[in-house]
């Protein structure tokens, strides 16, 4: 940790508000005195794990963040990439784990609201939302309640603001019993030359507050998100904010209308740590000071102190620096939408944050030293122990006739239709691929191109081997975009881990970042934005580590997209990529044998790139009728999903038909259906990509293996579709 001065021990209040004694001393050293109550609160949230990334930034810095198509990498509200024709795509993912566990509906809803603001703050029209959800054991008494609340919250917010929720993933595992994960991603589109940043400029320029009024909700939310849970976590409910998607919708429209003019100098949403972090970040980035008169802040309730106002996390608020000459015009736009618009201060040359209330100065602190002294820890970490590979031959022999429906109806592989049918995934009218495919696709009006997007992580792999698991999350994401025909461009990451003060947990984090780094480099797939959520533990039980990857890719010609549905009897089914039959850390091992062990499948990034580029090339040549990545549950589950989507049977006759081959989770593989297998085989040979024909799409009603019926497609549909609705209809 960098210190402003050599720390001496200062007298301390009883409640340090989450600061360590050393951090409190640093704060005193910066001020040359003990902080006021308001200043203490400001230090506390600015230096919280959530806002300062103090445990993670040392490692996050090692991730690749550049490419010729990256316009803006991490550090702004969201990442920005060039998608051609003067268009830019702006996107980010963010967690709302702690609030969602405490109050699932509002926690999840405000997670969506927060990530939307991060994206439209930069000038983008939000065009799609996605989410990655992880819940505890379905048998745990809280799980059903959390699923219902989180899904309703995401839908309630996204549906109302009119942004389609087009994709996501949902897992269940007992490691999330006390900490569900709710990660929300927003993708937006802007003109490349109309992107807005947060660095303030121009001393004397007005600081303008717009949006909803400030209340006492969410005070110290960022601090809550930076601590572990215990049995008393329910008492933290008042730190969860309450969302108002209607106001957000108006705020989107008003901001975009204002952004079409030249009025804005800088803009920043008020997210975690509200007025504090937005004002400090804007002034800090501009090397300026800022003076706030809190009596002018639109307030929802009377008698709020400056401490409460500075720390409130009331939703749907933005802070802007405007050109003084455009103030009147800007005010008229917000008035049109019935939103508050208040000049609450001005930029200064002092470099200090000055907060006044009732004519009294409640905070007067230097911004640069506070930002520079923001703690950065090289936390001790321990490499995760290596697991041995699983020898598939030693596992009991099982009949795939019994295995397939069991896997397809297991909580992780079962259809998530019950969830995504509660999300309006069609509004705006440009959804080209609905949820349920490898990646969602959203068209851009007036353009031939489309954006593909997806979120991925396989926490059981990360837990088994953080390096391989981190690489796998990136690779699978890249593969899913490839499977629809898109060229993957960049990612946003959401790092969900336990308590970083424990070396074993920190080791998971470090390993995952190392794996992601390798994969991002090998696949030329840079990180442009992200979020870290640590302390996902309850009573000392950490979650399965989840470095969730949100990826965006480009389809230059949207007409050349493919989906996973089998199209026509007679098409050959070809597996691209090599299959050894890797069962370590697989769904098969967990669901069928009840074993959660073994090394996860190794990630060969060179093969990943080669196979993916090959498949994308085939799709571009229109040689692929259907395509699906082979991941959880292996080749047979992949083909089963393709059969369900296309309402077609398939006759399979692979060279090997043991369960390790059928259900193994070797990486870098795709299943494609093609009308021209000879051509595909010839191209594969030339590209040195391993391929094998494993069967044909049939006109029959069933999936067959070597002439024997495994299951009819309609019976498979019943087990696949029924699990979640049935589960949700039960009572504890």
């Amino acid at each position, binding site marked *: 940790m960098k210190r402003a001065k050599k720390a001496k021990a200062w007298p301390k209040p009883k409640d340090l508000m989450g600061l360590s004694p050393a951090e409190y001393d640093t704060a005193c050293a910066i001020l040359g005195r003990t902080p006021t109550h308001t200043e203490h609160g400001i230090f506390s949230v600015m230096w919280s794990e959530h806002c300062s990334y103090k445990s993670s930034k040392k490692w996050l810095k090692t991730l690749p963040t550049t490419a010729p198509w990256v316009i803006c990498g991490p550090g702004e509200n969201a990442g920005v990439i060039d998608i051609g024709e003067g268009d830019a795509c702006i996107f980010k993912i963010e967690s709302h784990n702690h609030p969602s566990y405490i109050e699932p509906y509002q926690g999840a809803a405000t997670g969506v609201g927060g990530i939307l603001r991060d994206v439209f703050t930069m000038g983008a029209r939000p065009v799609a939302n996605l989410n990655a959800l992880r819940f505890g054991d379905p048998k745990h008494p809280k799980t059903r309640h959390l699923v219902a609340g989180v899904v*309703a919250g995401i*839908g*309630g917010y996204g*549906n*109302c*603001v*009119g942004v389609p929720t087009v994709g996501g993933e949902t897992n269940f595992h007992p490691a999330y019993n006390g900490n569900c994960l709710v990660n929300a991603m927003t993708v937006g589109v802007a003109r490349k030359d109309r992107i807005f940043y947060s660095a303030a400029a121009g001393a004397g320029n007005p600081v303008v507050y717009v949006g909803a009024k400030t209340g006492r909700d969410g005070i110290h939310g960022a601090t809550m998100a930076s601590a572990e849970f215990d049995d008393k976590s329910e008492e933290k409910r008042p730190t969860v904010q309450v969302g*108002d*998607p*209607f*106001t957000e*919708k*108006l705020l989107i429209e008003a901001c975009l209308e204002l952004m079409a003019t030249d009025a804005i100098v800088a803009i920043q949403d008020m997210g975690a740590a509200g007025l504090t972090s937005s004002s400090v970040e804007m002034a800090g980035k501009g090397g300026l000071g800022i003076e706030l008169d809190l009596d002018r802040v639109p307030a929802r309730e009377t008698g709020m102190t400056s401490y409460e106002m500075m720390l409130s996390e009331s939703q749907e608020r933005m802070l802007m620096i405007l050109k003084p000459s455009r103030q009147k015009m800007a005010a008229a736009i917000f008035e*049109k*939408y*019935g939103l508050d618009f208040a000049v609450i201060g001005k930029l200064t040359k002092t470099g200090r944050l000055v907060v006044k209330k009732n004519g009294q100065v409640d905070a007067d602190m230097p911004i640069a030293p506070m930002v520079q002294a923001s703690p950065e820890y090289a936390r001790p970490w321990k490499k995760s122990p290596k697991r041995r590979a699983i020898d598939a031959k030693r596992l009991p022999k099982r009949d795939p006739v019994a295995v397939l429906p069991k896997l397809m109806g297991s909580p992780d592989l079962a259809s998530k239709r019950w969830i*995504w*049918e*509660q*999300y*309006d*995934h*069609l*509004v*705006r*009218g*440009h*959804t*080209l*691929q*609905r949820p349920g495919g490898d990646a969602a*696709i959203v*068209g851009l*009006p007036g353009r031939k191109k489309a954006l593909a997007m997806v979120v991925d992580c396989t926490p059981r792999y990360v837990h088994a081997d953080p390096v391989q698991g981190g690489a796998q999350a990136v690779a699978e994401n890249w593969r899913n975009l490839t499977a629809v025909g898109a060229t993957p461009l960049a990612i946003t990451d959401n790092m969900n881990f336990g308590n970083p003060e424990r070396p074993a947990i920190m080791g998971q984090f470090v390993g995952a970042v190392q794996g992601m780094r390798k994969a991002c480099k090998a696949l030329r797939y840079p990180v442009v934005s992200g979020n870290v959520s640590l302390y996902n533990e309850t009573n000392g039980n950490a979650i399965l580590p989840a470095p969730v990857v949100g990826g965006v890719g480009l389809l230059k010609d*949207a*007409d050349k997209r493919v*989906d996973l549905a089998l199209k026509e009897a007679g098409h050959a089914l070809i597996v691209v990529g090599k299959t050894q039959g890797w069962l370590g850390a697989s769904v098969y091992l967990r669901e069928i044998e009840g074993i959660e062990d073994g090394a996860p499948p190794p990630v060969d990034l060179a093969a990943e790139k080669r196979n993916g580029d090959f498949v994308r090339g085939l799709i571009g040549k229109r040689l692929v009728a259907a395509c699906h990545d082979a991941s959880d549950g292996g080749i047979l589950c992949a083909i089963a999903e393709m059969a369900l989507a296309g309402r077609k049977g398939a006759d399979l006759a692979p060279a090997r038909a043991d369960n390790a081959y059928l259900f193994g989770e070797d990486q870098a593989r795709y299943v494609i259906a093609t009308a021209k297998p000879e051509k595909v085989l010839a191209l594969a040979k030339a590209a040195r990509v391993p391929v094998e024909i494993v069967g044909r799409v049939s006109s029959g009603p069933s999936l067959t293996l070597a002439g024997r019926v495994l299951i009819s497609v309609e019976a498979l549909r019943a087990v696949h579709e029924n699990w979640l609705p049935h589960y949700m209809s039960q009572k504890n």
Partner: protein
Amino acid sequence: MKSAIVVFPGSNREGDVADALQRASGKRPELVWHSTGALPAKLDLIVLPGGFSYGDYLRCGAMAARSPIMREVVARAKAGTPTLGVCNGFQILCESGLLPGVLLSNAGLKFICRDVHLKVATRRSLFTHRYAAGQVLRFPVAHHDGNYFADAGTLKRLEDRDQIAFRYCTPAGETDADGNPNGSARNIAGVFNAAKTVLGLMPHPENATDPATASALGGTTDGKTLFDAIVEAVSK
């Protein structure tokens, strides 16, 4: 054709229906912000789009139905200007009294976004004349409160006077409980006023008009016919 879409605070499918109308008529409709005060003169069509007007924190459509611009919409509609309300627009039409009945919460108490099948109940209207009688269509729905309700007398009157536009049905065209996604009375998905110049429906024909997005929607552009029909009728 001259059409206007009324945009309330919280409307969110105004762009979708504007695109659909443009596809059918070749002309972009005018978007009229609710507080502008007046609708353009001599309109061939007024549209109330989907969304969450005023957040719909009260009964859906109740606030919008009482907003000043609705006085003019009601007057124009009563004077015979063709008026279409989709989803939230249907709710507003019911709340404003232009259409009979109300929309309750879905029987399943959840938001539903998926494709449904609809049976054309009558082709005798400016909105439905290009469909075949009894034709089965596929449109998406996206609503939480689409459960149509009216008292028995009203339902009978609607049926007797051919005021039912669409009914939810199974893919095979059965208007039974299996084909009913939200519990609507007698599977009613859309109704007309007595003069059949006002249509309200919960499903989104505007989201089933674009050949480019059709593959995501099970291949349907069935909604285009509805907009084509309107264009043809008002152009005569």
